[in-house]
Every structure is written in C-alpha cells, then in structure tokens.
C-alpha cells in the first residue's frame, strides 16, 4: 500500500520535549496530545498537517525522554510515518510499540525539502519524491518490528499471540 503526503522537514536531534512538551504529559488523550505536537519548534505543524503527511528529520530523532506520548502525538496528528537519518533507541522502540511506522533513510532525507510531495511504499521499501521525481530505498523494518506494526502495536501483538493467531 502506498502512502502519499507532504514533507514536514526538521533538523538533527529533534527531542521528545519538542515533539510533545512535558507540560502536556498530564493527559494521555491522543487527540489532545496531537494538538500540541511539535509546537515548541513549529507552531504551524499541528494545525496545518494533513492526514498522510510525513515528518522528515535529521539524525537522532526522538532523543531524550521515554514518554510514549511522543509517538502517540505524532500518530494522532495524522502523520503516516517519520523518515529520519537516524532515531534514538527508546523512541524507535516506542514508535513500533504504538504502531507508528518509522524509517531510517539518510539519502532520502538529504533529497527532501519542506513541502515536497512524497509517496512511500512500506512493503517494498521505496520512497518517491514526486516534487523532484527522485526515488529512494528506505531501510526495511526489522521482522519483529514489522509484526508489531502489522498488529497495531505491542499490546495488540501480545493479544493476538495469546489467542494463538
């Protein structure tokens, strides 16, 4: 299945405190968290992001806190995936546990500008920049992580295993 949307481009070391500031952590309501997603570095993101858009960023995306509110906020904001040069490890794990697809793709990140229209085929691992007409390979998701995303996150995965599916 192909996902299509605009790129929201950010730099290196986007940390969990800007993805969702601590002052909003006293709720875990996805819709409420989505309203404040990225607001400390990009006031426009939460109000202007369209369903299916992509967050595209530099290295070490999601560094900092273990708050699962971060991938929840991104997923609830409507973004279909995050594409970055690299991810911090706790965020990486939390994203899959929440069913938020994320891709490490250094070459693609360099070739994407803010607002470019992207088409991502998650199964094939291909990313097309329709604005520049360039095509990129994205790192395939590791098998265990793919199972998590397919199941809709860790807890659904556990539930399906318990049912012996």
């Amino acid at each position: 299945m192909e996902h299509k949307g605009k790129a929201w481009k950010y730099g290196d070391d986007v940390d969990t405190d800007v993805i969702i500031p601590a002052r909003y952590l006293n709720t875990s309501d996805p819709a409420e968290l989505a309203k404040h997603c990225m607001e400390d570095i990009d006031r426009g993101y939460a109000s202007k992001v369209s369903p299916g858009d992509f967050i595209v960023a530099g290295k070490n995306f999601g560094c900092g806190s273990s708050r699962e509110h971060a991938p929840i906020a991104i997923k609830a904001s409507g973004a279909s995936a995050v594409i970055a040069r690299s991810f911090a490890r706790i965020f990486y794990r939390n994203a899959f546990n929440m069913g938020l697809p994320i891709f490490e793709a250094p070459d693609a990140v360099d070739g994407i500008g803010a607002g470019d229209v992207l088409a991502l085929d998650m199964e094939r691992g291909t990313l097309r920049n329709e604005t520049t007409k360039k095509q990129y390979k994205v790192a395939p998701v590791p098998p265990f992580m793919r199972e998590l995303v397919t199941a809709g996150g860790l807890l659904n995965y556990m539930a399906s295993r318990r049912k012996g599916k």
Partner: protein
Amino acid sequence: MATIFRKIWDRHVVAERDDGTCLLYVDRHLIHEVTSPQAFEALRLAGRKVRRPLSLLAVPDHNVPTSPDRLEHIEDPDSRKQIETLRENARSAGITLFDIDDVRQGIVHIIGPENGLILPGITAVCGDSHTATLGAFGAIAFGIGTSEVEHVLATQAIWQKRPREMRIEVAGDLGFGVTAKDVILAVIAKIGAAGGTGYAIEFAGDGIRRMSMEGRMTVCNMTIEAGARFGLVAPDGTTLSYLEGRPAAPGGAQWESATADWRTLRSDASSRFDREETIDASRVDPQVTWGTSPEDALPVTGVVPDPSDHPDPAVRARRERALRYMDLAPGTRLTDIPVDKVFIGSCTNARIEDLRLAAGVARGRKVADGVTALVVPGSGLVKRQAEREGIDRIFTEAGFQWRLPGCSMCLGMNPDRLKPGERCASTSNRNFEGRQGPGGRTHLMSPMMAAAAAVTGRITDVREVLKG
C-alpha cells in the same frame, strides 16, 4: 570471556528469537505517576493482573509541587488526578507506594538505590529514560515506554534486542572543582548526543573506581544523553559499602552469598567491546552547556562557538538555531553569561553528596541580586540527612529556597518552571528547547558550578570562587 553486561543479560534470558531479540526477566520495576496510568488502565481492560507486585515500587515525583503546602493542595487538576490514580493503582494491585507524605518519597531513580532495592546483577526497568542511573550498581537498568510498562506489569518480562557494547575508560583523577557531572558532560561532548545509540556503555577506570556511588549514579544517569539506553559500572567495595544495611538489601547469611556472587560481576580482562573510548579525567575542567543539546558542553573557560566553523551543514543549522533560542552570540565568554534562576536538583544531582558540594560553595555567601535559586533534595531521606548536617541552613542563610522532594524544575510539568526568556544554571540533564518551561534557556552544569552561578549572578568558574 564475557563482559559484565553480557553476564547479567544471559542470566535473565527467558527466550530468544532467531533474530537475536531476547525476552528478559525483570527483577525490579519502578513506576511513577506520569507513564504508568495508561498501563494500568489497559491491563484492567484486558482483564489481566499485575504478575509480581512485590517487584514493584511506586512513587509520585514528576508533577508533585515542591512547595510546603502540597499536602493540603495541588493546584493543577490533571496532576492531582495522576497522583491519585497512582495511589489507587498501587493500592488495588498491592504495590508499595512512597506517597507524598512519606519521608521516603522522592525522585524515582534516587529512592530505589537509597532503600537498597537496586542490587548488582539485577535487571530493572522504569517508564523513564533516566533509569540508566541504576546501572551504577552493576545492574542492567533501562527506560521503557508505557506499552512496555504494561507488558512488564503483566508478564514480568520484556523483549529487548541485545545492544552493542562500549567501554569508556575514565583515566586519572578528577581535578579540584571537577565532579562526576563534569566527567559525563565531557564524555557526551566527545562522543555526541547520538554517539551511544544502540550501545550499552560500561564505565571503568581509576576515575570511576574512585568515585562515590552518588558520582557513579550521576555518570550513568546521563548515558541516555549520549543516546545509550544502558550505562553501568562493575560493583566493588564502594558499591558494597553503600548497600550494606539498606532496608531492602540482603542481610546476614544472604549478604555473604550475595556479595560472593557480586564479586564475579565484572568484565573479564580479555572481553571484547564493539567500541572503546578513553577520557583523561585529570584534563577535564568544570563543564557548562551553551546550546540546546547535552552534547553542547564546553569547559567553563571557553567561549560560545561559531556555528560557521563546523564543516557539516546539518550541525551548522542546529547550532545556529540553538544560538537563536539561547540568545547568545558566537565568541561570548561563557563566564560573561548572566543567569536569572539556579536549580540544584533532579535525578542527576540531588543526592546528599551533591547538596554537600553545592553547600560548600554557598556557605557564607549570598545569592546575587535578582537571582532566584532553588535547592530541591532528591528525596525525603536526602532532605532529612541534609537537615541533620545543617546543609539546609547554609542554603537558606545564603538566600536559596529549600524545597520538598520531586523532579521540580528539571522538566516543566509542575509549578517549578522557567518563564519565557529566563536563563537558568541547572544541575539537571536536558537543555532541550522548552524543557524547563516554554522559552526557558538552560545551561547544564554541576551542583558546585550552579552554586557558584547563584552567588555571582552569572556562569562562573567555581574554582575561582573557591580560591578567591
């Protein structure tokens, strides 16, 4: 020939998948009010129980106010609800809770060790990235997300990929005015905020061996700031002296057999690491961050760097943004930067040794005009000990506020936070944009350095203050 990390890991493997992902048994699980409520709620919806309540300890720390009236009233309704929810979840599941009126309440990463709950060779998790702190005891301790909190509550186990291993040798002795905080800031500056991504880091060498447990906890606490989920130090005599007699530590014959085992927990001499780094502690000066990443640390004698000096355009862009946010110009001497607030506290630096060191600087001096300075002990027990030693009076006579335990101004989700544009000398662990409050500007440093900033009103080389 195995590393200490591998030895502990292998003891805890319940199952292993073909791709090397392991199901690890969890010995100790700590929970706080912010990342646990959804886990309990989901558990209830799934009709499951907490598998091993005795392995858990619950404490409210992130959003508790640190003002004296907190027992009567917590202003923010959402925070109040999270604290009440934690209380109710702990009660119904039979989990020990150190509530806000309990002298043992404090920051989750501080109260585990001081009550003897964190022992060499164990696995420990918490829904908080600074869980790495606990690795100072020679344990595998790491932060997890809330889904994983639920998974551990239900199963007492967690899926983890075996990380690569790095050894960082801290060689030589720390100089005058230099502490564990300066060492770890220098390490992060050297390897970068993503330098440890995918690694477990073992800290070793004379510099670590001569550090107290408090210092080792400070070092391990900030390994996550270098991107590594795990930091650890092999146990030794210092570890054992710290643990002996703590409430939950083994006693009598159990102590003898436990310590005999703990002595085997070190990396064999011929162990291979995926990466090795060395830092000469004798050449580390007191450190200060100038930017918005913990890797932006420099010796206090330095100047704000010029982003255009860096060859990598992505780094240049990040640094330019950081300087705009911090309202700093390249070439500014760090010691010319004035501060509005000073925060001495957090899971990084709110243990008794930290307060003693800061009090040594504050003693007989006064907080500079226009500066607000907070000292927030990491736990009720730290607070009580400090009060027995007269440390509270040293601070209050110097004009510092002496608060109740909690995460406080580390993360801007309780009443202690910076106002937009305020600049803070902080002993916490993250200088991210908005971390201490929207628009707030954070300079990370040691407790001694923060106390020096409080009494001079600007970033100051604590060695000059102590000499002068």
